């Protein structure tokens, strides 16, 4: 996925692509690096095709809008940022290749990783090797920044993080369990790194907050598995009181649709961390009420005017609802533009220094602030909470925010337990 139009990444046409193809076929031969252009170049690696295509679509919108604002305000002394978006097709090795190509051939100043978690690790290797300023905008896998062996001085994460969400989820689920008397649990998470981590940590913190909780079964659908019947019937056989799932995207909608016909939600309390996102809420035709969900992105949470305005403007601009990736990428781009303004430079060392520990005003933060924590270059203080679904807008009317003090405390212990600190 590529667009050289810095004003509207979302607007593409085949014809224009063909014209560009003809024009750059000679000049754009991949090995011949061209002279540094006037604009500041930012290269985004993301998924633009196949089942993950929506990642690229939302990510590029979130980031490009922020960049557009920066450019409209005059850029860096008149130098705008040019965002180049390329499709890794969901293959980590291709992500690594594109990232290297961005740095080595296109000479980008900033690398935006809006790809999968697996790709984030591959891109992290490129970041370490090349020293280019890198922002991971979608990867939620904690070890990417928590593990000092993997962490890099020039790589930041503007996405939410698995460990934070698990602590938040565990504490919320424990509250619900205590009031509803839920003891037996089952997990149904996708069988890949994110799913396994999220599942494991959720139950770890559930038990931390609620000693009586017991996991009596697990089922592991494959990522992008079309049919969850076998997992659903297994859940029905095991008869837990509650189920945790971190399925996401189209997998989650299929899971909800299929659960509905088994009448699962009436029999079992379901905690699905990824439902409260407009990509799911608006797509599912018969959204059951009473599912517990973590907040991904909601225009009503945080319940501020800034957040509601941002969502409304986004909708007007792109004719679709913003989603989790939108705010994560917007935030990543915002940190970078703020750092550029602050340092008046695109030098990676200066930018990294500025971004480390940086706090910005943001509609997505608790109290309107987001911070890139200095000790591990990762995002903290973003709005996170849980609530129950209803069938129509605002879908999750009452989101209970989870206290960041609790999250940070337990995160610290988790890091110690994993010998990261």
């Amino acid at each position: 996925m590529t667009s050289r139009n810095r004003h509207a990444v979302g607007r593409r046409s085949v014809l224009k692509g063909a014209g560009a193809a003809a024009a750059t076929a000679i000049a754009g031969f991949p090995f011949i690096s061209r002279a540094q252009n006037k604009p500041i170049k930012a290269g985004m690696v993301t998924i633009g095709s196949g089942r993950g295509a929506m990642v690229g679509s939302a990510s590029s919108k979130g980031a490009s809008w922020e960049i557009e604002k920066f450019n409209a305000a005059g850029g860096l002394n008149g130098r705008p940022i040019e965002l180049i978006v390329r499709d890794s097709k969901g293959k980590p090795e291709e992500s690594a290749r594109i990232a290297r190509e961005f740095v080595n051939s296109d000479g980008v100043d900033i690398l935006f990783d809006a790809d999968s978690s697996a790709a984030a690790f591959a891109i992290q290797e490129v970041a370490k090797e090349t020293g280019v300023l890198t922002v991971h905008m979608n990867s939620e896998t904690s070890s990417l920044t928590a593990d000092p062996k993997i962490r890099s001085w020039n790589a930041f994460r503007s996405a939410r993080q698995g460990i934070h969400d698990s602590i938040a989820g565990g504490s919320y689920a424990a509250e619900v369990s205590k009031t509803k008397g839920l003891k037996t649990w089952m997990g149904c998470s996708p069988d890949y790194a994110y799913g396994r981590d999220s599942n494991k940590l959720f139950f770890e913190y559930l038990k931390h907050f609620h000693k009586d909780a017991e996991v009596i079964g697990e089922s592991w659908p494959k990522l992008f598995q079309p049919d969850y019947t076998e997992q659903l019937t297994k859940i029905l056989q095991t008869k837990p009181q509650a189920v945790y799932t971190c399925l996401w995207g189209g997998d989650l909608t299929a899971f909800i649709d299929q659960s509905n016909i088994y009448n699962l939600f009436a029999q079992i309390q379901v905690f699905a961390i990824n439902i409260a996102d407009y990509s799911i809420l608006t797509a599912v035709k018969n959204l059951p009420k009473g599912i517990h969900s973590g907040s991904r992105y909601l225009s009503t949470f945080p319940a501020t005017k800034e957040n509601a305005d941002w969502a409304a403007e986004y909708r007007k601009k792109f004719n679709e609802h913003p989603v989790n990736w939108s705010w994560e990428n917007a935030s990543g781009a915002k940190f970078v533009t703020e750092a550029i303004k602050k340092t008046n430079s695109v030098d990676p060392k200066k930018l990294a220094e500025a971004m480390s520990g940086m706090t910005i005003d943001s509609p997505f933060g608790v109290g309107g602030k987001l911070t890139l924590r200095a000790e591990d270059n990762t995002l903290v203080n973003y709005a996170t909470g849980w609530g129950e679904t209803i069938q129509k807008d605002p879908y999750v009317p009452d989101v209970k925010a989870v206290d960041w003090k609790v999250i940070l405390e337990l995160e610290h212990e988790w890091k110690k337990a994993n010998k990261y600190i």
Partner: protein
Amino acid sequence: MDLSALGSCLISPSCVITQSTSGLIIGLLLFLVAAGVSLIFGVLKVVNFAHGAFYMLGAYFAYSAYQLSGSYLIAVLAGGIGVAIFGVLFERLLISRVYGSPVLMQILVCYAMILILDDVVKIIWGADFLSFGMPPAFQQLPILFAGGVVPVFYLFLIVITLIIAALLGLLITKTRYGKIVRAAAVNPSMVSALGINTGVVYASVFMLGGLLAGLAGGLAAPVRSLTAGMGTSIIIESFIVTVIGGMGSVAGALVGSILIGLVRSFGSIGFPLFTEGLMFVMMAVVLVLKPSGLFGKEGR
């Protein structure tokens, strides 16, 4: 591995019923796709890798038809007929041009088609996944049967796919058309010399395969999320079915599909992390012991 869980499931009637229906439903939808793959291979000797994309198209056609008409029946028919037409065009315009070429060249054409169709779907219907929604008629509580749980919609799917399977079986074994198709699979030049236009036969087989895949896509749409690339997993399973059942055999495709469905549903209890591997083990075992498949003819 959790063999004790599998054991205790097998002695519990409720578990057996629930898992069997889930195996049946997975298997029967798979059958509709695999039967087309098997038929096309049997008659044209073409490994139609693009068949998963046919299934995807069926789901999307059904989605749009459902948006326009609000009728699930019309949606499913639109999926089936739309893909049937597409199948004929694909065969006439592309695949028929590489009949004489090596198998790998045909696969190359199919692969190109998958790339193009996934992109076209993304352009027309968007990069986001779509959810069809359960038709109101099926928004009912599941039926309880001997302790097992069977959703009404799945019961409907099982019945309708079994009817389609039976009709397909009759079509292939009893009608003149079916006899010609089977004859063309064995000896196309002789069929041609008897005054039958094999080009039409080939196109019709693609039409039939497309119809089945399109119906499968439409039928499954209410419970599967629609995305570009949704055909990839089903095509691999279809090939496993085709190999296990025997290439070109409709009965083999049915048995193979149900077998895969059951392996998935019971495997998820006994080997939750290795169900995929289990299917490939099955395929390898069949290929080693009886390369032509359970229902295949030897020496072909």
